[in-house]
């Protein structure tokens, strides 16, 4: 411990170089943290899925609709509890950049199946069922657009053309559960269906997908098969899978991008190591003679190695702590700005743990060459060393 205090003294040496090294490490650690957070946000969709929620969609793609009449048939299958359905509506609210999910749903059942999505007031739910054009929005969206009960949201239909007017009748939230996406807008499917019927559209009496809960998650595969077998030879065959798998199928569309990001996040660690190793190699080379002097005085090779590794890890940790600290406000800012794309954008404890592990790893790896310099060199050669 007495000896380790010498590590601190060395920080007096090249203040600018030390500052640049710590800055470089700080920036790379920050980049790493941000990237891991983005990656986590991607995966979060799959992560929030309830294991007992199963989704049935068209076998070809979820953009093909299914008859609403399937509902009763699905509900009759053994092991299926509550069934609800939804249709992707989207449309343009205000302008094209205002992207958040807008869906037509069955109001009587939707919030039972999505039980973590809480509508606090019974009346809100009641209004969603009874008011033809009522809608419920997530509290995040309500806050962002300053939406209050009775406000009208005008949406330009794209999948379903026309100008649609929705009246806000209530709100839902995750009640503190950070994993719940609080950016949905949902409205009564009947409102959509009535106007489709008026237009004699083929889409009338069709929905996007079914979602239901099951008794026993061990029977997921069996129940899913039973559902799909039921509609195998119909016009609209189905594909049934867990919500998790369903969400992952969204993510898989960008799998190669994610793989690239994963790779880059570890490249960043490599850069961090190189930045630090460069500094450590330079400073150990300058100190060859000092190490020889210290050995002459009686410092052992082990003492010197302790000093070098101690210094390396110390620099690495300071940079890492600074990088992590500046990541927090940045992540908060991004979370705010991109809340519609990444409803869950928070620094995970696991990211911090990986960071610390890699920071220490970089500290150790960076001292390999200096340690070899300092231990291989004989005292006599070290003392004769010029420089």
């Amino acid at each position, binding site marked *: 411990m*007495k*000896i380790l205090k*010498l590590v601190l*003294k*060395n920080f*007096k*040496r090249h203040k600018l170089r030390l500052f640049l090294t710590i800055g470089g490490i700080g920036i790379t650690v920050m980049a790493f943290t941000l990237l891991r957070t983005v990656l986590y946000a991607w995966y979060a969709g799959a992560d929030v899925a309830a294991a007992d929620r199963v989704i049935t969609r068209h076998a070809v793609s979820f953009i093909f609709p299914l008859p609403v009449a399937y509902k009763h048939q699905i509900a009759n299958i053994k092991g299926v509890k509550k069934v609800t359905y939804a249709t992707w509506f989207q449309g343009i609210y205000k302008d094209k950049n205002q992207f958040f999910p807008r869906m037509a749903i069955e109001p009587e059942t939707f919030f039972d199946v999505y039980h973590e999505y809480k509508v606090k007031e019974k009346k809100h739910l009641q209004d969603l069922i009874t008011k033809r054009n009522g809608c419920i929005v997530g509290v995040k969206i309500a806050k962002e657009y300053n939406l209050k009960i009775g406000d009208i949201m005008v949406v330009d239909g794209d999948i379903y053309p026309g100008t649609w007017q929705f009246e806000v009748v209530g709100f839902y939230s995750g009640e503190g559960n950070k994993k719940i996406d609080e950016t949905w807008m949902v409205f009564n499917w009947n409102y959509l269906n009535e106007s489709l019927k008026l237009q004699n559209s083929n889409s009338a009496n069709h929905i996007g997908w079914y979602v239901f809960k099951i008794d026993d998650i061990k029977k997921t595969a069996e129940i899913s098969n039973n559902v799909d077998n039921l509609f195998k030879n119909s016009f609209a065959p189905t594909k049934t899978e867990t919500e998790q798998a369903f969400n992952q199928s969204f993510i898989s569309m960008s799998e190669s991008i994610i793989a690239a990001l994963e790779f880059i996040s570890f490249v960043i660690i490599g850069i961090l190591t190189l930045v630090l190793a460069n500094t450590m190699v330079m400073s150990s080379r300058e100190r060859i*003679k*000092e190490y020889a*002097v*210290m*050995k*002459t*005085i*009686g*410092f*052992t*090779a*082990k*003492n010197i190695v302790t000093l070098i590794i101690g210094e390396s890890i110390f620099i690495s940790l300071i940079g890492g702590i600074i990088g992590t600290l500046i990541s927090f406000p940045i992540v908060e800012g991004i979370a705010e700005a991109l809340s519609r794309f990444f409803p869950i954008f928070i620094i995970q404890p696991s990211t911090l743990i990986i960071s610390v592990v890699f920071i220490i790893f970089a500290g150790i790896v960076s001292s390999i060459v200096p340690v070899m310099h300092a231990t291989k060199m*004989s*005292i*006599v050669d070290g*003392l004769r060393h010029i420089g």
Partner: protein
Amino acid sequence: MNANSDNLIQQSQNVENVESNNTIVSIQSLSKSYWREKFEIPVLKNISFDIPKGEFLALMGPSGSGKTTLLNLIAGIDKPSDGKIFVNNVDISLMGESQLANWRTNCIGFIFQFYNLIPVLNAYENVELPLLLTKLSKKERRERVELVLNIVGLSDRMDHSPKQLSGGQQQRVAIARAIVTDPLLIVADEPTGDLDKHSAEEIMLLLQELNAELNKTIIMVTHDPRAAEKAHSIRHFDKGELS
């Protein structure tokens, strides 16, 4: 540190242990060669001599004659190719690496031509450096450091960094560092080689004082005849042999 090395060090520090003979360093048939690629460079050739306790010995000789090499061997920072070196009756050529390191802390004070202070440590911390390797408490270390800085006349410069000190002052700090563990032996490799005449004289007076008043055995390599004059005895070196 193992028990064995403790033992050896104790033995070499324990003056009573030495059978009435007055020899502190005994060099017996010592040879040293360096190897560069496949070529052997013989530096010291079969040297034998004794140094009595309390001696102030000057080693003189032309450049490249092996003075530094001999000093390094006596100080235990280099290994002989052949022969033995006894310091206080202990054959240091038999010691292992870490045992030898520990022995150096306790038994050797080394003074270099270019002072070799650690630039980021102030005078106090430089002198304290060897004591960090001992079991002394912070308070005991402070007492020792203040004592030796007082001996070399730099009590008022404790918090100065080497950069803020003149060459002569730096060498005095280095001398303080060399004596702070109260070693058996002080070895100095051209301690005045980098100093102006006046500073050199001061350093020589200081070494004389250490020898006369504290009874320290000093082995000093020097080019400077005026410096050598201050020693008790002078040995000349040429081409790796004593003359």
